[in-house]
């Protein structure tokens, strides 16, 4: 029968390994809003998604059309999930303002799939890529919605650099 110190050391080791895996390899996120319908739902059950952190290394490998997780530009404690539409240097058409904007260096343009309720780059502009926290790759809960989150781009809105 091992003593309590052994249990404490075991849980500390487990916590260190868990935090490292969570920060560097993969993590889970729960969807709270309906801005990404129909890709990610929060009624009747909140979707839980797998977030890959491998894209955050020095190559910063994000592609147009990825669903990404990032820190909100208006509240650093809040995480948001949206689809990345444009990378630095791209030109994107903003339908509500009837204009075409160029995404500055180091920034990206994010929009929710559910355009009516989504609060995204159409409101607060392009966001720095430094806010990115990962790429959503799969839905893992509820069981009837398990599957990949596909890369999708809207037609005719983005002109690549």
């Amino acid at each position, binding site marked *: 029968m091992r003593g309590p110190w052994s249990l404490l050391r075991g849980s500390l*080791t487990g916590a*260190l*390994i868990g*935090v*490292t895996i969570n*920060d*560097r390899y993969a993590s889970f996120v729960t969807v709270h809003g309906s801005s990404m319908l129909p890709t990610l739902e929060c009624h009747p059950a909140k979707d839980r998604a797998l977030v890959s952190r491998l894209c955050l290394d*020095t190559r*910063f490998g994000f592609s147009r059309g990825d669903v990404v997780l*990032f*820190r*909100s*530009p*208006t*509240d*650093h*404690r809040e995480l948001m999930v949206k689809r990345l539409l444009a990378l630095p240097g791209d030109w994107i058409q903003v339908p509500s303002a009837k204009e075409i904007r160029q995404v*500055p*260096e*180091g*920034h990206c343009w994010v929009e929710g799939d559910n355009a009516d309720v989504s609060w995204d780059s159409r409101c607060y502009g392009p*966001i*720095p*890529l*430094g*806010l*990115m926290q990962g790429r959503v790759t799969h839905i893992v809960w509820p069981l009837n919605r398990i599957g990949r989150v596909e890369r999708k781009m809207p037609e005719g809105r983005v002109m690549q650099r």
Partner: protein
Amino acid sequence: MSGFARRLAGFPWREFAADAFSRVFLIAQAVCAVHVVNAHVCSLAVVTGPSMLPSMNLAGDVVAVDRVSARLGRVASGDAVLLISPEDPRKPVVKRVLGMEGDAVTFLVDPGNSDESRTVVVPQGHVWVQGDNIYASRDSRHFGPIPYGLITGKVFCRLPLTEF
């Protein structure tokens, strides 16, 4: 040949594998501990460049960065912070916070050439950062207020690089 095979069979493979596994596990635990401390508690960074003269050296300084304060939101005007550049997500830079959200910041638009100044109100969730050396710094005067989420740590200790 059969002598070699016998020596191979007699080798204590199980103990060898167990020993190797426990050593690798120990190294993995150490790497994880270093990552957790570096990313969540305290970190070191080497900074170079003229944008923070005279507070920091041109040739380079080693700065110690506190990650807990930044995560808890305890960054205030006057703090030197380490942040991810909004122009290049791979580049960490050190600047000083001059305005938090809601503050009105007045700055010189082009200090070497004119006296024109402008006042900006920092929007919600953003901060205004400037280098101490306003003549040689690329900061919020050029790329605007930055989201607080780009701040990765608060500088609390500095050592010149030449002392190593």
